[in-house]
């Protein structure tokens, strides 16, 4: 009997294919198009195509001719952490004009910014889980986020785009029950973080999908000027609130959580995720200290100039938003702003995507995009 020979396999066709992810794709968190070159299931190249949400922020800001009028436009840069965008801007203008801001305003800004940071991280974490198929944590996150938005709505009258900060102070006085509302939230939220950890952080499917995926080494992160949880996830302890303090952040005690590769490699998606979770606890600490120290009385509009007298010069001021370093570069003339540039963390962090997604599977690309936590309003401005 002739020996059985297996048939020769036909030559496997070896070619790459280019596919589009987005602009309308739930996992791109907005209108982002990724031109993905794949070899079978493996991503060989990613080219992000942005600009779908470009609203000419810089052109508008420069043409308004008045520093005060720009504030509502800054809200719309990164609309899930609008207060941080306002805060960065007003601090930049105050530095330019050498304005002193009352204590009460500074404390209020810090408390609001940290509340906003928690709200923004909850959204980031929730949608990150959603990207990977975990629907329940998303709902839990949104319940808590809702509580924060209620407080912010009571303060400013709006849920998303607040227009509450102004150059030199705040738009209107603080509601009387703000302190008690915030205390109530802080007390009720702390146990919820543990709940979230049980649901998502230690979930083995979630760990499988995120550990060792999209590893960003620290030196690459620095060369790309990454910031926020993206940089801290890679093990670099760098937080502007600690390293280059602005406002009154030097008065509070808090830690800077960094990625340690607990589930895989330092700088993977899980590390970026856990940094956000731990930052929420640190934000709670800051809020508690600020609530304790905040002066009870004081006019929040005391230092607001009736007419802003512009100065010649320029400033670059950076602040730590939930997504990283937000910089405002303002060139000022006697007549008003000449050039206003917003350096947004989403824009810079997204530019790293091609470098860290090479060799990943298509399904992992979704995890990587989710872990960067971009907001397309911030990318496109």
């Amino acid at each position, binding site marked *: 009997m002739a020996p059985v020979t297996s048939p020769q396999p036909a030559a496997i066709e070896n070619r790459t294919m280019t596919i589009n992810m987005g602009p309308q794709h739930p996992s791109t968190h907005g209108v982002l198009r990724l031109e993905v070159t794949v070899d079978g299931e493996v991503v060989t190249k990613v080219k992000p195509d*942005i*600009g779908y949400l*470009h609203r*000419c922020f*810089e*052109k508008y800001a*420069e043409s308004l001719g008045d520093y005060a009028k720009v504030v509502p436009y800054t809200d719309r840069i990164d609309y899930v952490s609008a207060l941080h965008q306002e805060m960065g801007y007003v601090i930049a203008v105050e*530095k*330019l*004009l*050498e304005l002193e801001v009352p204590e009460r305003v500074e404390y209020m800004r810090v408390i609001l910014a940290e509340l906003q940071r928690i709200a923004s991280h909850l959204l980031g974490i929730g949608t990150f889980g959603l990207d990977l198929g975990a629907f329940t944590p998303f709902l839990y996150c949104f319940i808590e986020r809702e509580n924060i938005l209620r407080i912010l709505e009571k303060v400013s009258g709006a849920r998303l785009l607040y227009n509450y900060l102004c150059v030199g102070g705040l738009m209107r006085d603080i509601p009387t029950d703000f302190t008690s509302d915030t205390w109530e939230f802080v007390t009720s939220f702390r146990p919820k973080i543990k709940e979230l950890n049980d649901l998502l952080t230690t979930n083995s499917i979630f760990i499988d999908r995120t550990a060792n995926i999209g590893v960003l080494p620290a030196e*690459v992160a*620095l*060369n*790309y*000027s990454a910031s926020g949880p993206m940089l801290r996830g890679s093990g*670099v302890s*760098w937080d502007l609130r600690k*390293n*280059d303090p602005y406002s009154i952040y030097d008065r509070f005690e808090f830690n800077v959580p960094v990625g340690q590769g607990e589930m895989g490699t330092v700088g993977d998606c899980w590390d970026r995720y856990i940094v956000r979770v731990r930052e929420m606890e640190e934000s709670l600490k800051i809020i508690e200290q600020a609530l304790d120290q905040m002066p009870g009385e004081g006019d929040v509009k005391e230092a607001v100039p009736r007419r802003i007298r512009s*100065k*010649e*010069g*320029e*400033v*670059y001021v*950076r602040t730590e938003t939930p997504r990283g*370093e937000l*910089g405002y*570069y303002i*060139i*000022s003339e006697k007549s008003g702003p000449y*050039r206003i*540039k917003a*350096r947004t963390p989403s*824009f*810079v962090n997204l*530019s790293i995507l091609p*470098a860290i997604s090479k060799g990943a599977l298509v399904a992992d690309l979704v995890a990587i995009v989710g872990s960067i936590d971009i907001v397309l309003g911030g990318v*496109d*401005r």
Partner: protein
Amino acid sequence: MTTEEITEYLNREYGGNLDPTYAEAGDSWITVSPSVLREVAKTLRDDKNLQFNNLMCLSGIHYQKENELGVAYHLHSTIHDHKLVMKVRVPEDNPVVPSVESLWKTANWHEREAYDLVGITFRGHPGLLRILTPQDWEGHPLRKDYEQQESYRNVSTGI
């Protein structure tokens, strides 16, 4: 180190003739000519006393009165924790600036943005394409004399 100290150090060690500029308010900066920009940038990044490993921001500027375009580099060193603002200016009719993309990867998208919105050409950039506006858009929106096109692909732009 402060801007003055850095300028002094550069002049002493590398024999340059840089001079910081001060304004009425805010930051001071140094201006370098485009022909030596890359060399200076490389020194700023690699010199062991400077080590500017972080390019925070890169912005294109249109100086309408002088008929010039400019680029501002906001540098920071996470090792020595000092900052520096470096500027370069080029004439409007030949706006060519050497790219620093090979020194700081973050410059890639920033330079594309400056090219797109202000119209500065970065020599040596690996893929200088528009980034925020469509590839076939006309003009550079952040120029002070920019006039928006009336229609784009037969769709009115609303002016």
